[in-house]
């Protein structure tokens, strides 16, 4: 008797059930008006436009993207480490600061982190006008908070006994602190920091879609004018950039015992801090607060804003997050398990790469060519994009796993799919789910992007309220976003703890 047992493996597949309501709504909303456009979009991917003019544009736009992406990465890593330190236990123990401040700093960072960089970007653009530096600042704000969390988590692994022994030597407090945090900080930088550059470039592209500049803006403009061949030129060049940035960092081996390299990094560190600080001051004092200055707009009454709508949109956002998380969790193991042979694997990998490459707004806009905007469509977009990311992790882990069990089961005559499931995947399921719990934190934040584009949830309300300068509403929406993200993070934290 084959009963469905609730274990980590089955838990990884169950969320696919979200496809039932999702599929129902999507089928109801289907229209074939834009089918030809979609076809054209697909065909153009094999036939990108290549001529002198566009190559020059691409180089120029990529330069901007690299500049924004790299600079915001650097700043957010350095300040992330700093905030990571002051939001870690060890700091408060060494300096004997009451735990109260620890809570305050953590709470503050949690709130900052709960709001997606696109929301920060839209917000800042509304206040300062479209501006190159908005991109950097919009990315840095949440990134610093996200990075600080990762740094702080790594710092919590410092052995309390080591703290006691270094503390007992009674050196200057900063010396003790630095000695203790050195290795966790370097470790986090190597294992997490470098990977963040890719994230930062992606975020730059997404913000570009909203007009910040760089390749994202070109992507958006070419999509708007339905210039699909041009669009694919930009997308492919972005792909090259992302692959290259990954390769470069894989090749560089950071050797912390190399003196010249160490000094080099230290100088970069200080120059960046100095520069970003000056830049920040410059930014604050040299920008006129165009729209924000009109105080009347602060108190603008919002008669068309109803509590009921607000609750409905909040609920929509929550449903959107749940549906997309379901897809992101279950789709990769399902697809990899069903199409378990070498050729399909390559196709899945390419498809997953494309899902990661194409910014979510573009995926959504493409899907909108033959489907009306709905929560399901937004969820599908977000889910697919994130499935691209979770599947990459799953592939990496499966490839590096010991395959003896799997081979033994296959040679016993057990079917290939069953052996894959029991011999390979079941060993990964737990850590995979733990990663997905972490991923769903991000999904909740990303609902903002598809919300703004796909007119669903709070993202839509944010856009509406911002364009009518209804700052009270904006504040309310931001608070709602924060609450959802924070509650989500708490729940995911509990899940993660029970999984590890």
């Amino acid at each position, binding site marked *: 008797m084959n009963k469905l047992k609730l274990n980590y493996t089955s838990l990884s597949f169950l969320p696919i059930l979200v496809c039932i309501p999702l599929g129902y709504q999507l089928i109801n909303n289907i229209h074939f008006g834009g089918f030809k456009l979609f076809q054209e979009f697909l065909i153009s991917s094999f036939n990108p436009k290549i001529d002198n003019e566009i190559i020059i544009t691409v180089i120029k736009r990529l330069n901007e993207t690299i500049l924004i992406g790299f600079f915001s990465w650097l700043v957010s890593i350095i300040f992330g480490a700093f905030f990571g330190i002051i939001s870690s236990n060890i700091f408060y123990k060494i300096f004997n600061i009451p735990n109260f401040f620890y809570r305050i700093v953590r709470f503050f960072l949690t709130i900052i982190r709960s709001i997606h960089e696109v929301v920060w970007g839209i917000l800042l653009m509304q206040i300062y006008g479209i501006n190159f530096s908005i991109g950097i600042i919009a990315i840095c704000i949440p990134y610093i908070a996200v990075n600080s969390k990762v740094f702080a988590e790594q710092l919590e692994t410092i052995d309390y*006994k*080591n703290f006691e022994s270094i503390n007992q030597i009674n050196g200057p407090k900063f010396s003790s602190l630095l*000695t203790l945090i050195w*290795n966790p900080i370097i470790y986090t930088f190597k294992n997490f920091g470098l990977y963040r550059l890719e994230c930062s470039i992606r975020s730059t592209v997404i913000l570009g879609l909203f007009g910040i500049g760089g390749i994202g803006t070109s992507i958006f403009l070419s999509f708007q004018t339905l210039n699909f061949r041009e669009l694919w030129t930009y997308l492919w060049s972005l792909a090259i950039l992302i692959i290259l940035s990954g390769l470069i960092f894989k090749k560089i081996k950071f050797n912390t*015992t190399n003196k010249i390299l160490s000094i080099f990094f230290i100088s970069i560190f200080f120059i960046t801090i100095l520069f970003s600080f000056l830049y920040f001051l410059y930014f604050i004092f040299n920008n006129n607060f165009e729209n924000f200055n009109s105080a009347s707009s602060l108190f603008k009454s919002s008669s068309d804003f109803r509590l009921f709508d607000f609750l409905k949109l909040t609920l929509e956002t929550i449903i959107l997050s749940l549906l997309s998380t379901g897809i992101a969790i279950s789709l990769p193991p399902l697809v990899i398990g069903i199409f378990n042979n070498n050729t399909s694997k390559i196709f899945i990998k390419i498809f997953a790469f494309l899902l990661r490459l194409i910014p979510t707004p573009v995926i959504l806009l493409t899907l909108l060519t033959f489907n009306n905007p709905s929560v399901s469509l937004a969820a599908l977009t977000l889910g697919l994009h994130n499935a691209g990311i979770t599947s990459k992790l799953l592939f990496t882990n499966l490839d590096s796993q010991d395959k003896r069990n799997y081979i033994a089961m296959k040679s016993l005559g057990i079917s290939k799919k069953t052996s894959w499931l029991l011999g390979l995947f079941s060993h990964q399921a737990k850590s995979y789910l733990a990663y997905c719990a972490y991923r769903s934190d991000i999904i909740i934040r990303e609902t903002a992007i598809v919300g703004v584009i796909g007119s669903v949830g709070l993202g839509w309300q944010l856009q509406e309220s911002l364009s009518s300068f209804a700052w009270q509403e904006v504040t309310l929406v931001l608070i709602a976003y924060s609450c959802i993200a924070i509650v989500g993070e708490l729940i995911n934290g509990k899940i993660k703890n029970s999984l590890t």
Partner: protein
Amino acid sequence: MNNTVLELENISYKYKNDLILNKINLKINSGEKIALLGKSGSGKTTLISVLNGTIKPTQGEVKLFNQSFEELDRKQKSKITTIWQDLRLIEDLSAEQNVNCGLLAENNFYFAFKNLLNISSFKKAHKYMKLCRLHNSIYDKKIRKLSGGQKQRVAIARSLIQESNILLADEPFNNLDPKLITTIKNLLLENVDKNKTKKSPKTALVALHRLDLLNDFDKVIGIRDGKIFFNLKRNNLKKIHLEKIY
């Protein structure tokens, strides 16, 4: 002319519901070499942690140089050095970097920074490592790659390099062979360095299980179930005392 350097007044330490140290009174005078005896789990490590200020006792007061421990400044507190039973070295740093950590107290932040970047001077560290019979091939090895006995001696070198007046050593002879035990014991308790470039700590309290080493100590303290059972001159120690605590 006994001047007390460390003093415990009616110290108790409770962990959850267990009374781990029970009303301990103890005076340690300058220049004394004290052996601390007791079964495993009798409270030796806890007592040492209270003496160096790492554990705050639930009750009673710790006095260093006749001053309450909390009132002392960093420099005064650094007059105590500890060799921990579980070593407590930083696994991801090299042996010499760990030994240099002992110099944190007498140097500024810049030194700590250079030490981590591996660009500080290791001259003094090497000197102490050599005294501990550590071979120079392990100087720049990460702690996690060393053997138990090597780690033990790195921890000892980190402690000796501090050149503190008061040494608290918790079973420092673990993992060492007989010849090394003699060397290390001499390092901890006497001036053995022929060139007289190094001063042994004046006052030492060593927790140990090797009764054959007791001859080098002036005093013996016996502890059982968190209580001091005897605190005697070594010459007065009788078999019957030892039977009480073991």
